[in-house]
């Protein structure tokens, strides 16, 4: 039933909207919120409380309190009092068993109430231990509020936008508007955001500044970042000046029965009557500590509710006050023994500046004893507070209401925290149990930890606490304000939420060839093209080609390039001739292996450094860091993406290459570990003769736009030689046959080059290099474990990560293992105790829970003398 139309109302009576509540259609006007429409339809109970399942009704109508949380179109815990109606929306209650009006779990309130004092779960259900999982399942089931559709998918409707403003004003009340206008007059670029404008008096769009509403600032973060929740868009604001005009939050009074349905804060009265032309009830009592309550009494009268009594706490100080109800609805109020019937009770305990944003930005929060509120002080630079957020006005709250009011008889409970169903008794009990600092009491009672994050209970709980511990509020301090200022949906925070992934220039070729793709770090790479064994065979017997574009590629040049690299790597480079390549291992300052790759000298002062596919970024950062520290005349350029790379390998690779280049590729003209620049099929290439896969082979590095062309040409011109593209899996087998190490798989964050059998590359006679001190120490101490090869006695392939077992305990680990057709055995690499690191030592490896014998091998399994590699 609506009141007669008024000019102020926000509903458009000519347009109706239908939505569904618990499956039943509800008719609303455009301009209604789900909450106002349900209220208009006669609904008074909007939710059931968290713990006791007490009926709860509209309380603040401002989106603060927990009383109107419902499921809306599958989204849990939506505050329907501020959620606009939309055609066809499906609304359901949450946290009830049965219906809102008949919630079976309300028995908790009847019988459980006295049995579930604060913290009861810490003291019960301890024995027998076996029963605990069942108790726990029950506890979990009754906890929680909303539910979600387990099969829902992402909607991808959210987006993020980066915005700048000279002045960002948060809050569109009178003081926020004044601040925005003033700044605009000064010629500043001003943006004003407000979370509720859509509800209160509509703002005229003003010239001079931009208004965004409804849009809620959710925090003031480091560097002045102010994220603003504007529905489906997250605005990330950076402003030179942030003006917080977030206003104040009306505070409840603490008296028995203060959570009954029909107990309202003044804002609820204002909104129900003025915006939606609804009459809150027939007969009201108003108890107030400020003018807001008086204004609410006026609103009520205008709406035709009779106001039976107004208690102004500034002039009268009752000793006793309690509301009584039936079926959870308020029926009467007694003040100092004087009982008045009513179905609406307005309480106004003054208002507390909404300082959370300021506190989060770094302001100090201080208790103002004369006004009984917390006020922000010592604002950080570039942040200002205006209006009631700054503690100004808090008009009329001159009277500090008593911390809590005594009731008459036993019965009604006095709630300090309605979100968490915490009563004044709970708080008193917590203090008596020794939780005598506010932070401890908060954690124990869970006051302020509910959906409103303490907006309605922080102040009252501290004042109650102060009274009970006979301390001054000011000395108690306050609990920390934890962002965000209001709940924000994960979807909004995530935005479009793409995860980065990298593809090489040949990605589509691989797909066309039917490659199974796999991840290596952020890269997508072919695992194989379907026949691993055939791909391995092609490399051993004919020719294969693999896309190695993912290798990190750095160009290090400058007069100091040699000194720079020699100081970074344990290797020596001074004696490396232009046109030659060296395998190098990069170490940390603690002597641990960080990455590996090849370094080719292109000229006196230019080096071409490759890194592992996953290590490129780290290595680049490492180079730049040390270059900055040492100040060498060297430049480091990352050409990883600019250049593609192919490895053409196999006994017939030379013949294939010879067809495509004028370069002398004869064994004498282009030997093992030589680097050459030449055109291959017309494409300018850097050719590196190296052999990770153990056969004669050439790595071609060239501008990536040519990648598909060169790949196609190689496959075409190599067709008669039986060329096959090969993937990572064949590559792993091939390199394992040669016992070539994969850094990060065969080594870990503790491995060093000496224990990993690479002592030949560590040049201790160099003046210094990163990690030298640590490696000298390792040399003195001797190895703790060693990386060795092994072959299984009976052909079982052990799992990678499998354990070498000595006396029933883990003593080492398998890092790589595969079956090799070429070797005819299951082979692998493993870390073993030094005592077992000799050729032919017998080790035992755990496979599927059994111990399988294996023999240690210290030389490559295939072509141990590198004859094929050097051919």
């Amino acid at each position, binding site marked *: 039933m609506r009141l007669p139309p008024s000019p102020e109302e926000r509903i458009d009576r000519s347009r109706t909207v239908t939505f569904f509540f618990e499956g039943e259609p509800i008719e609303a006007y455009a301009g209604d919120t789900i909450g106002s429409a349900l209220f208009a339809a006669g609904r008074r109970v909007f939710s059931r409380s*968290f713990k006791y399942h007490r009926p709860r009704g509209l309380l603040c109508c401002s989106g603060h309190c927990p009383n109107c949380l419902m499921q809306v179109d*599958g989204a849990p815990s939506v505050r329907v009092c501020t959620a606009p109606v939309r055609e066809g929306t499906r609304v359901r209650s949450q946290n009830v068993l049965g219906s809102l009006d008949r919630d079976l779990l309300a028995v908790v309130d009847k019988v459980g109430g006295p049995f579930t*004092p604060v913290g009861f*779960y*810490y*003291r*019960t259900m301890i024995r027998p*231990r076996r029963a*605990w999982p069942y108790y*726990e399942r029950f506890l*979990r*089931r009754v*906890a*929680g*509020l909303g539910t*979600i559709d*387990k099969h*829902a998918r992402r*909607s991808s409707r959210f987006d993020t936008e980066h915005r700048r403003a000279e002045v960002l004003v948060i809050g569109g009340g009178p003081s926020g508007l004044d601040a925005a206008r003033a700044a605009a007059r000064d010629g500043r670029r001003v943006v004003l955001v407000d979370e509720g404008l859509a509800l209160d008096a509509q703002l005229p769009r003003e010239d001079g500044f931009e208004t965004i509403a409804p849009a809620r600032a959710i925090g003031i*973060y*480091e560097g002045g970042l102010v994220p603003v929740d504007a529905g489906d868009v997250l605005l990330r604001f950076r402003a030179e000046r942030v003006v917080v005009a977030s206003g104040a939050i009306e505070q409840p009074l603490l008296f028995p029965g203060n959570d009954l349905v029909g107990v309202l804060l003044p804002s609820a009265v204002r909104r129900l009557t003025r915006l939606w032309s609804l009459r809150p009830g027939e007969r009201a009592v108003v108890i107030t500590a400020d003018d807001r309550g008086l204004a609410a009494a006026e609103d009520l009268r205008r709406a035709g509710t009779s106001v039976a009594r107004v208690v102004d706490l500034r002039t009268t100080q009752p000793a006793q006050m309690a509301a009584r109800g039936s079926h959870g609805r308020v029926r009467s109020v007694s003040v100092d023994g004087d009982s008045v019937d009513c179905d609406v009770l307005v309480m106004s305990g003054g208002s507390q500046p909404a300082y959370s944003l300021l506190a989060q930005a770094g302001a100090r929060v201080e208790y103002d004893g004369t006004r009984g509120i917390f006020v922000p002080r010592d604002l950080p630079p570039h942040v200002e507070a205006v209006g009631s957020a700054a503690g100004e006005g808090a008009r009329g709250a001159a009277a500090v209401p008593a911390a809590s009011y005594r009731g008459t008889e036993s019965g009604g409970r006095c709630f300090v925290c309605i979100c968490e169903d915490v009563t004044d008794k709970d708080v008193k009990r917590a203090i*008596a*149990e*020794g939780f*005598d*600092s506010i*932070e401890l009491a908060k*954690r*124990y009672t869970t006051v302020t930890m509910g*959906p409103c994050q303490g907006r309605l209970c922080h102040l009252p709980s501290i004042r109650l606490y102060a009274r009970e511990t006979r301390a001054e509020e000011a000395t108690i301090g306050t609990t920390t304000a*934890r*962002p*965000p200022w209001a*709940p*924000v*949906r*994960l979807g909004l*925070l*995530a935005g479009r*939420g*793409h*995860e980065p*992934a990298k593809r090489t220039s040949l990605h589509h070729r691989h797909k066309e060839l039917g490659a199974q793709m*796999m*991840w290596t770090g952020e890269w997508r790479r072919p695992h194989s093209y379907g026949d691993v064994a055939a791909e391995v065979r092609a490399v051993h017997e004919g020719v294969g080609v693999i896309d190695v574009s993912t290798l990190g590629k750095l160009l290090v040049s400058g007069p100091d390039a040699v000194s720079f690299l020699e100081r970074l790597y344990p290797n020596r480079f001074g004696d490396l001739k232009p046109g030659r390549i060296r395998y190098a291992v990069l170490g940390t300052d*603690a002597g641990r292996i960080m990455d590996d790759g090849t370094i080719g000298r292109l000229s006196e002062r230019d080096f071409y450094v490759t890194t592992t596919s996953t290590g490129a970024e780290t290595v680049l950062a490492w180079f730049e860091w040390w270059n900055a520290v040492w100040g060498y005349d060297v430049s480091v350029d990352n050409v990883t993406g600019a250049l593609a790379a192919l490895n053409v390998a196999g006994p017939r690779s030379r013949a294939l290459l010879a067809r495509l280049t004028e370069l002398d590729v004869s064994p004498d003209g282009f030997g093992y570990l030589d680097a050459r620049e030449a055109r291959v099929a017309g494409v300018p290439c850097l050719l590196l003769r190296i052999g990770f896969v153990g056969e004669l082979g050439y790595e071609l590095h060239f501008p990536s736009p040519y990648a598909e062309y060169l790949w196609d040409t190689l496959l075409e011109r190599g067709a008669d030689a039986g060329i096959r593209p090969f993937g990572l899996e064949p590559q792993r087998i091939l390199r394992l046959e040669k016992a070539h190490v994969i850094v990060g798989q065969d080594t*870990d*964050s*503790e491995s060093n080059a000496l224990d990993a059998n690479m002592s030949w590359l560590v040049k201790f006679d160099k003046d210094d290099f990163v990690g030298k001190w640590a490696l000298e120490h390792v040399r003195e101490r001797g190895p*703790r474990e060693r990386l060795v090869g092994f072959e299984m006695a009976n052909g079982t392939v052990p*799992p*990678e*990560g*499998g*354990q070498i077992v000595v006396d*029933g305990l*883990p003593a080492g*680990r398998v*890092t790589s293992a595969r079956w090799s057709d070429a070797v005819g055995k299951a082979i692998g690499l493993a870390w073993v105790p030094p005592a077992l690191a000799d050729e032919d030592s017998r080790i035992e490896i*755990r496979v599927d829970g059994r111990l399988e014998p294996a023999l240690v091998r210290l030389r490559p399994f295939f072509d141990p003398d590198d004859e094929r590699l050097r051919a």
Partner: protein
Amino acid sequence: MRDIFRTRRMWRPRGELKDRYDVVIVGGGSHGLATAYYLAKNHGITNVAVLEQSYIGSGAAGRNTTIVRSNYRTPEGARFYQRSVELYERLSRELDFNLLFSQQGHLTLAHSDRALITMTERAEVNQLLGIDSRVVGPPEVARLCPELDLSHDVTWPILGALYHPRGGIIRHDAVVWGLARGADRGGVEIHPYTEVTGIERSNGRVTGVRTTRGDIECDTIVSATAGWSTLVADLADVRLPITTHILQAFVTEPLKPFLDVIVVSSQMHVYVSQTDRGEILIGAEIEPYTTYRGTSTFPFLEYSARHVLELFPQLENVSVLRQWTGLCDLSPDYSPILGVTEVDGFVVSAGWGTYGFKAAPIVGTTLAELISTGRTPELIAPFTLERFYTDTLVSELAAAAVSH
């Protein structure tokens, strides 16, 4: 049962400081309180004071995401944490305080074959030490956590997981309060709002501490100050190879049961669980920079939200309620630093990074034993400060960087 209704004090009100204690424990977090509790309980050493600069549990103990598990990588680590899990399993009864230990199971997801290797290694080590831990394939993952997005058209498909059935979460405050109550009943004094500002020594041994409430003499000082460890060790001129970083976490609004297992994705730097209160609890890895400033950052919320929705797209409309930050004391090898130092009588529990809460009971028992007998228990011998001089590190990087 009667206890539920009777209001009984948890601990005595804070009294005056005495002039002398046998043992002074700096830090009223889980480790300091556990050490105090076991000193009294196992060794009858009760002339002990726990000094805490703020309220008990104000540090990482009251901010952590409470994952308790033992599926570590190194035999040294796995064995140590396993003992701790076993102690936790008994602790509710022992303290007569329900710690709400919820052993729902712990799944560490593998999104790459490299990750599967690491997990196999952990499972193998764990099994050899009698720890329930195994690698499971996608069908089993789907059974254990049907809510997970196991499709292949996501950036990081799930290839398998390391499953640890006895891994769980626990109520952090309950652990702090239960231990504090136990210690108090055992006779130990707990002094909140008492900051240690100096450590007195003579002839290379500690003789006392200075505090904001006066000076105290003592024979032994235990520093259990986690994120503040280097500051307190500095007071004794002991240098620890530790840096302090922040770690952040957040919770959503409480939901009805949605997730019955803890899910960790190192690849996406995120882990998710649902508390007994119904909140979805989400954490990440440590911030890469060092700081003592405990402010929460917004980018953390953004990237964690992004990652968590990759795993659980259905959470899109669930709202974040609050976020917070705690300090973490990170050691170079992701293993703790426990026991004696070069200053006689100065004992440390430090280097806990993002994983120390699960160790509170075992730290308490072993440090109490060390103090009582003067000998380093075998279980913690691998974790001495000395290992950084002998370069015998215990690398848990693979098992502790994201899954705390």
